[in-house]
């Protein structure tokens, strides 16, 4: 009885943690909520001196870096998942999937220092000049690739984030691909389908919900990732159309400015940013979990 009560109390503590997080964010953000209201979300200005704050800059940076990360990480993760479930010889499967999963255990601060000192110079000297020369003059997408190659900025942050979410997305994809019923695959082979046909036209449609869930899980991580982004984003609170320009994200702004914030309103504005981030990631992750849960009920095992 005592033991049972102890486990029950612990479970309630998990609930209390979530409630505490929500309450503390609202409590901390209250002065800024009262002063700026919802216009906070659309205002670009971020001026600690005049105490006018707006979240548009960090919000834009958060969304853009996450989209870049997904654009790079989703095709790569799909390739890795297909390779590991279909082509890879059995004896190589363990080491390769282990190696990819080790990417997930490297601390984010290490990605940050690596991104700043190794990745940013490479992008600055070889990739970005090429993008400026070849994509900059194009209509429509041209403005995304104009301006000087800073090295740090939205694009670099997106690339680092892509590497960080890659192992999460690919491991979910691998799990759900494995769940696809063998009978379905065999039926397709019986009709003369190639191995690629089976993957693309049978396995992928069957595991659609799980794949989307995995991508959303990656998105949730990308939105909230802090240290790696803080190193390479450049901390500039304005919206610049160019992906090569320095910017900031919600988490990077909090990490950079929180311990230096003077004045209640400044601190409170950072809490407001945190609240926005929480709502954003909570929505995305909750949706991802619901999708995966649905698939899990259809198949077996937890992803």
């Amino acid at each position, binding site marked *: 009885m005592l033991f049972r009560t102890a486990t029950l109390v612990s479970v309630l503590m998990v609930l209390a943690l979530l409630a505490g997080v929500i309450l503390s964010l609202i409590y901390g953000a209250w002065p800024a909520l009262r002063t700026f209201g919802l216009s906070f979300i659309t205002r670009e200005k971020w001026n600690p001196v005049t105490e006018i704050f707006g979240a548009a800059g960090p919000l834009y940076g958060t969304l853009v870096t996450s989209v870049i990360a997904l654009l790079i990480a989703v095709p790569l993760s799909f390739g890795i998942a297909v390779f590991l479930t279909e082509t890879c010889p059995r004896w190589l499967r363990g080491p390769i999937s282990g190696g990819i999963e080790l990417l997930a*255990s490297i601390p984010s601060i290490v990605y940050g220092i690596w991104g700043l000192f190794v990745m940013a110079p490479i992008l600055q000297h070889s990739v970005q000049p090429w993008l400026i020369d070849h994509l900059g003059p194009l209509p429509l997408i041209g403005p995304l690739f104009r301006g000087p190659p800073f090295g740090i900025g939205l694009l670099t942050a997106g690339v680092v984030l892509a590497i960080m979410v890659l192992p999460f997305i690919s491991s979910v994809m691998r799990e759900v691909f494995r769940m696809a019923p063998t009978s379905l695959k065999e039926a397709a082979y019986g009709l003369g389908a190639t191995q690629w046909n089976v993957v693309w036209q049978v396995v992928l449609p069957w595991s659609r919900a799980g794949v989307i869930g995995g991508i959303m899980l990656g998105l949730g991580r990308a939105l909230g990732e802090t240290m790696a982004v803080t190193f390479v984003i450049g901390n500039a609170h304005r919206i610049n159309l160019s992906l090569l320009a320095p910017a900031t994200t919600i988490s990077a702004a909090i990490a950079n400015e929180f311990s230096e914030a003077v004045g209640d309103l400044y601190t409170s504005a950072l809490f407001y940013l945190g609240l926005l981030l929480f709502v954003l990631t909570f929505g995305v992750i909750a949706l991802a979990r619901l999708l995966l849960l649905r698939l899990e009920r259809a198949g077996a095992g937890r992803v």
Partner: protein
Amino acid sequence: MITVLQRRRVMNFVAFAASGVATAIGLAVLVAILWTLLSRGLGALSLDVFRQSTPAPGSSGGLANAIFGSVLMTLIGILIGAPIGLLSGTYLAEYGRGSRLATVVRFINDVLLSAPSIIIGLFVYTLLVVRMGRFSAIAGAVSLALIAMPVMVRSTEDMLNLVPRSLREGSAAMGAQPWRTILRIVFPAARSGLLTGLLLSVARISGETAPLLFTALNNQFWSGDLTRPMANLPVVIFQFAMSPYDDWQKLAWVGAVLITLFVLLLSILARAIASMFGQHSQTGE
């Protein structure tokens, strides 16, 4: 003239070649990161790193105070977070199986598992730092505990679910109370799985930086006082890497190597134990 059959064959080849390339890119990045760390960090690694405290710019020093702080806060974090996580996971797998409360908690725990750690930092800041009036090591340890907890809940539940039902039924048939069955039969059967979960939670929090920025902050000097700011490796790496000083940047690389090697070692160890456990549970029934 290319036939449909040839086109399908070419498509098949191209697609699988591309998937191989994707895998190669993923592994290449891992190798590149490890290579950079080893080549930049190992060179500057010396005994002084473990003996001296973090230096002022321009003078020589080490990371001793930061290593001590990291170890201490991770230890306290695990001592708080792991038992709560273990008990919650036990509730989800044993008492609460299928109950509505368990479903809700499982869902919330999964969300907490992927929630941004910086938000946990803001929570502990409001909870402890504002109340105490200053940054402190204990606040840092609590924020690490809150991050370790969901990891432990999830792995405990998964591991206990691997233990065959028949063992529990056998114990119940002998007249054992549920708590006795769990403590004497289920936990020992899931021993190595639980250990894996513990190692993974240590790995998860030992490199955690964001929440420490507003809780433990940093300290230039050696400090064992839990109610005051304490140096720790991640924040020192952050501060030193962003600084313009050459010797500070070198120490940042050394710190990065130490943390990465520690975390990778833990992950590999956890994986090895888990795969041994997996074989046992297959042959055990």
